[in-house]
């Protein structure tokens, strides 16, 4: 009994530690004054005013467009590449896989700076496009590493059977291979989106004046105090994520009775 109590308390304390900044953030999004430490009264006004804030809306726009575009492009290139790598011989396959790990293992700051140097040297103006290229680059490994295991599980004979039965390679791919690797592609896409939306370091080094995502905006505000409008926006986004998780979770538990673990 004592043991379970200790475990409960421990779990509670760890969760308190993990959630306290988030609670602070959400609570202060309803605070009527701009103070980040003193509670002065309840208000919804930041949730209205954030939509009128040019800086916040532009950075939200850049965060979403870059995350969406980069993860879609990375998912397409990455899936195609995974299929290619999968059918390679042992040696080139090992080389490609190791090269894929490179951006994952390399420190963010080095990836960001090395790309910045590249963009400066080829005189590519830094801004939306350079940031997009950088995001595709760090998203690609996550897609490939999610699709590869699915390809490994694939039974090649089913594909061959489809060809024997007269399907063209393209038709067989769409009807046989694609549905089987789709969960991997979807996981890769979601991972890429998450990494992209949350990224600060690489964006910070590869963007230019006037183009900043939410993370960069928060960083630049941090010194003089982040506006409660940002709190409001992040609370909304957080609520959105939780809602999405609940929906996915529900659907999955309906589909196969196993819950939760598949989502992450």
């Amino acid at each position, binding site marked *: 009994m004592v043991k379970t109590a200790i475990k409960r308390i421990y779990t509670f304390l760890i969760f308190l530690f993990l959630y306290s900044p988030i609670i602070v953030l959400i609570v202060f999004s309803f605070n009527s004054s701009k103070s980040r430490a003193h509670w002065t009264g309840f208000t919804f006004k930041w949730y209205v005013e954030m939509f009128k804030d040019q800086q916040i809306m532009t950075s939200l726009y850049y965060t979403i467009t870059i995350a969406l575009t980069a993860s879609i492009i990375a998912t397409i290139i990455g899936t195609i590449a995974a299929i290619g790598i999968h*059918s390679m011989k042992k040696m080139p396959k090992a080389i490609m896989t190791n090269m894929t790990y490179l951006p994952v293992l390399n420190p963010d700051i080095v990836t960001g700076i090395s790309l910045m140097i590249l963009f400066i040297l080829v005189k590519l103006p830094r801004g939306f496009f350079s940031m997009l290229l950088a995001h595709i680059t760090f998203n690609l490994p996550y897609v490939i590493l999610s699709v590869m295991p699915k390809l490994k599980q694939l039974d090649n004979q089913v594909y061959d059977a489809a060809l024997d039965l007269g399907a063209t390679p393209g038709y067989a791919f769409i009807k046989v291979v694609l549905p089987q690797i789709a969960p991997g592609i979807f996981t890769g896409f979601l991972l890429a989106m998450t990494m992209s939306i*949350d990224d600060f370091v690489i964006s910070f080094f590869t963007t230019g004046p006037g183009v900043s995502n939410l993370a960069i905006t928060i960083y630049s505000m941090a010194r003089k105090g982040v506006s409660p409008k940002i709190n409001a926006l992040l609370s909304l986004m957080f609520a959105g994520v939780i809602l999405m998780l609940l929906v996915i979770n529900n659907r999955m538990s309906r589909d196969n009775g196993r819950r939760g673990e598949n989502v992450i």
Partner: protein
Amino acid sequence: MKKRLLAYPYGLWIVIFTIIPLALIIFYSVFTTDATGIHFTLQHFKRVFEPIYLSVFLRSIKIAAVSTIVCLLLGYPMAMILAEKNLSKKSILVVLFVIPMWMNFLARTYAWMTLLEKNGLIATALGFFGVRLPSLLYTENAVILGMVYNFLPFMVLPIYSVLVKIDKAVLEAAEDLGAPPITVFKRVIFPLSLPGVSSGIIMVFMPALTTFVISRLLGGAHFTLIGNLIEQQFLTTRDWGFGAALSVVLMLMIMFSMSIALRYEKENEGGGLW
């Protein structure tokens, strides 16, 4: 059509956006360019080993190591608790554990500033009980706290995923043979969880060693870690050569620490290089 040709566009992408940029960093670390052309030099690396910079390295390693140890000590019991729950409760807890990561990491770190600052929530709460603490924000401990906070899930999840895979029959066998719980943990559970522990250590130590954001926000403007030093070289002093040399040393350190940790990793998928 040969299927493996499909990998070539991606291969080209890696060469342009990963290999060449890294080669550029190495190039800038050992070559200087002036009016007379390009010269080979080791002056940048010599500077890295000057006492002031060496102390930055030592401090970064110390803080990253402390954060990693704290994460391990806090995270291992948490992973065990998560792993022993029954299936439905377990998945809910794991999801709850991961959810905070979906809130922007800068915003969460910023929220810690609110909690830690001089008239912040923690100081107010403690003051209520008559405890007066010296400033919490802009200290080394605040930086360590920020790192533990941000990277704890990276320690818990790999350990958890190894622990859930342990065959319960093995534990029962150990108990049947008369091993007390401590021995079961020491001789069975812990050794079996080592792959998870080693990847957890890598996943915490690496970002902790290279971050410049946590130290800037929670440590203040004068709190310098390797990451801050590198950032300064490229964005403030514009000394690319020295910044590149620092980056190369940082990469070597990461590779070195990873090669040590990976010795314990049994399921090494991607081939020998890493």
